């Protein structure tokens, strides 16, 4: 062993350490170096906004004036002009005009340069802005950093190409997109997703929750709009209608038109006349679909809800997708229960692959690589681990609580029905005195001391009311509030300083909303689907989150909760095997059905109770 080897090992260590640096300034630990970086980013953002367009104009006018001067010089060489007094007067006048133009350019350029030199950013204000909108800072940073820095791991994850075969991925990367009408900065992986949509035309965008599927679709619309296309159509759950409208306004120069409620026919006509981004719900779509003619791009948000071919909403979406060249199905949870659901989504969005995919998936043990190849033209999925290496840590804790005797009795006495058992496992004998509520109080006390915001999720309205009682009243989001009210609640919760609790019904608050302002998730009971829990956590731990996130799942010992945990684990494995990696390990083990071991156990527990 030599000194040379030690030096080499030191170099390798440095490289490895460098590759693992996470560029995510922590607002709770404000290091001066991070502050300098944020200030540099804030300054750059301001300069781009205030100076870049005017710089281009000054440059263009300078070049144009220079060309006119050249032309004038050429003219003065023509002898005829010298003998004409009129011509000389014209030349002097033209020259004066050019001088005035050059002086305008000088003044403008000097003023802008001086402005840039004098520009200072307030450090505290910059940290405040960053804490409220980290995603913008990170996207800006990624757009500025040379690829070599990103490639070394400071920002990019291992695979923004979602494991696509090189042939497709290269074609996607070679696709030019015109984003003049987009007002947001795209992350590199988002740009790739946008190129994928534009290049492949009919796709299922299966990115993990929180990676910004919406912005990628909006960017694709902006590209098409820049090419002269005008009509874009979004179908989304009612709960995210307002959010879509806001996102269109916030990130693009396109015009959103919500087609919903009593004025829907007029709104549809307006869209057909003027163009823009029509946004409607699955329910309203059924009443509109026959009036819609050819258009330019269809986006179907939370597309996993159209997996049943028998339902009217699915049929409406299928019909709509036949009216346009570009179709994007968006779903981070393309496979919820059965492989056939993913197959249905994929083949609906792109009927061309239908035969191949169907024949592959009929096999007992399809070859993963083959399936991968077949799905690649249609299905792009990146996980948070693939692309968001800067995300703060997530600590997940299962809080298994033993029931007190009164709660055990209440649990036994509850009706022999799964939902009643689930509720009883949480509320026990009632009055917010159950073991879970005791644990909830302890958790909230701790987070109140830390000044953290907490999102508490439950399936049950009654549990939300109990949570609210425990904290002396807190805002709620559930299925009965309107989309406008929901947005108001979210905005107020985000604006509130320090500790706060928001109680959300998991089916209503788990999709399409952003809760980066919170740092804690408490799931009051296990859910049926892994995606339901994952989506709830991803509302908080998503792009733009700068703080460590804690997720607690409350489980009552010896109750239906424990069997549900098993069931969820089993389903999670199915998703891992198939949709996560787009590869099939064992087709026969993919479907979770009523005869599965976990379901049997669930029945057993209910029976024993």
């Amino acid at each position, binding site marked *: 062993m030599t000194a040379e*080897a030690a030096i080499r090992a030191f170099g390798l260590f440095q490289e490895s350490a*460098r590759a693992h640096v996470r560029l995510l300034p922590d607002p709770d630990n404000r290091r001066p170096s991070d502050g300098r970086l944020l200030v540099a980013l804030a300054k750059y953002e301001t300069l781009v906004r205030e100076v870049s367009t005017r710089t281009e104009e000054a440059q263009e006018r*300078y070049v144009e004036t220079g060309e006119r001067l050249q032309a004038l010089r050429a003219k003065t060489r023509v002898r005829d002009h010298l003998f004409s007094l009129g011509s000389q007067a014209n*030349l002097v006048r033209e020259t004066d005009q050019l001088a*005035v133009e050059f002086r305008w350019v000088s003044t403008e350029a000097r003023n802008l340069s001086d402005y840039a030199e004098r520009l200072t950013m307030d450090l505290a204000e910059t940290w405040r802005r960053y804490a409220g909108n980290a995603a913008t800072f990170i996207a800006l940073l990624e757009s500025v950093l040379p690829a070599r820095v990103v490639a070394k791991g400071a920002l990019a994850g291992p695979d923004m190409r979602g494991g696509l075969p090189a042939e497709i991925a290269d074609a996607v990367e070679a696709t030019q997109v015109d984003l003049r009408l987009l007002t947001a900065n795209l992350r590199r992986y988002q740009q790739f997703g946008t190129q994928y949509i534009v290049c492949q035309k009919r796709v299922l965008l299966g990115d993990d929750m929180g990676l910004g599927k919406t912005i990628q679709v909006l960017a694709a619309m902006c590209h098409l709009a820049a090419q002269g296309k005008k009509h874009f159509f979004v179908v989304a759950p009612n709960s995210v209608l307002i959010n879509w409208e806001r996102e269109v306004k916030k990130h693009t120069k396109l015009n959103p038109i919500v087609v919903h409620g009593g004025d829907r026919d007029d709104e549809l006509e307006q869209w057909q006349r003027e163009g823009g981004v029509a946004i409607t719900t699955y329910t309203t779509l059924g009443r509109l679909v026959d009036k819609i003619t050819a258009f330019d791009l269809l986006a179907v948000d939370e597309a996993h809800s159209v997996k049943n071919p028998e339902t009217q909403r699915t049929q409406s979406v299928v019909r709509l997708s036949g009216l346009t060249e570009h179709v994007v199905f968006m779903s981070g949870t393309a496979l919820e229960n059965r492989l056939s659901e993913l197959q249905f989504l994929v083949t609906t969005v792109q009927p061309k692959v239908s035969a191949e995919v169907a024949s592959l998936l009929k096999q007992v043990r399809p070859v993963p690589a083959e399936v991968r190849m077949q799905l690649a033209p249609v299905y792009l999925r990146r996980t948070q681990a693939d692309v968001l290496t800067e995300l703060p840590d997530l600590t997940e804790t299962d809080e298994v609580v033993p029931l007190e005797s009164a709660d055990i009795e209440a649990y036994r006495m509850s009706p022999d029905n799964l939902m009643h058992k689930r509720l009883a496992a949480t509320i026990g004998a009632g009055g917010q005195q159950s073991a879970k509520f005791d644990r909830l109080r302890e958790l909230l006390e701790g987070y109140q001391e830390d000044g953290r915001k907490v999102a508490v999720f439950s399936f049950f309205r009654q549990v939300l009311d109990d949570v609210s009682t425990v904290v002396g009243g807190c805002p709620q989001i559930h299925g009965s509030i309107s989309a406008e009210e929901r947005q108001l609640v979210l905005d107020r919760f985000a604006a509130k300083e320090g500790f706060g609790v928001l109680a959300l019904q998991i089916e209503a608050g788990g999709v399409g909303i952003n809760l980066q302002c919170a740092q804690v998730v408490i799931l009051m009971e296990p859910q049926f689907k892994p995606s339901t829990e994952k989506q709830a956590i991803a509302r908080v731990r998503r792009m733009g989150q700068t703080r460590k996130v804690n997720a607690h799942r409350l489980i009552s010992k010896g109750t239906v909760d424990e069997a549900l945990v098993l069931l969820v684990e089993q389903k999670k494995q199915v998703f891992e095997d198939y949709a996560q990696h787009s590869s099939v390990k064992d087709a026969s083990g993919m479907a979770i059905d009523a005869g599965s071991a976990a379901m049997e156990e669930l029945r057993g527990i209910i029976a024993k109770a």
Partner: protein
Amino acid sequence: MQVRSGRGGVHADAGFASEQVKRLTQVLPKARAEIIAATEAVIQEAVLAEMKATPIAELKDFGASVGPLQSVGFRTVADLSGRSFGSLLNYRGSAT
């Protein structure tokens, strides 16, 4: 005939405009360079902190024989920072 503007040579105005435009076109690249330098500083700081927190023994995973280094008092990876091949040779036992 010489082309002149009312307040002096148009060429002088053009020259001054050229200087100012050149200065202006440096504004955004300079701001980007500041970001890159600030990023590099953050990375360097994080790498140094990692080196200080890592016992020298972990260099084994990178192919170094750490016994000789430990025997001359090196405790963390950061202790190797700034050492050249020549300076390491001065430590008895590091080159065998």
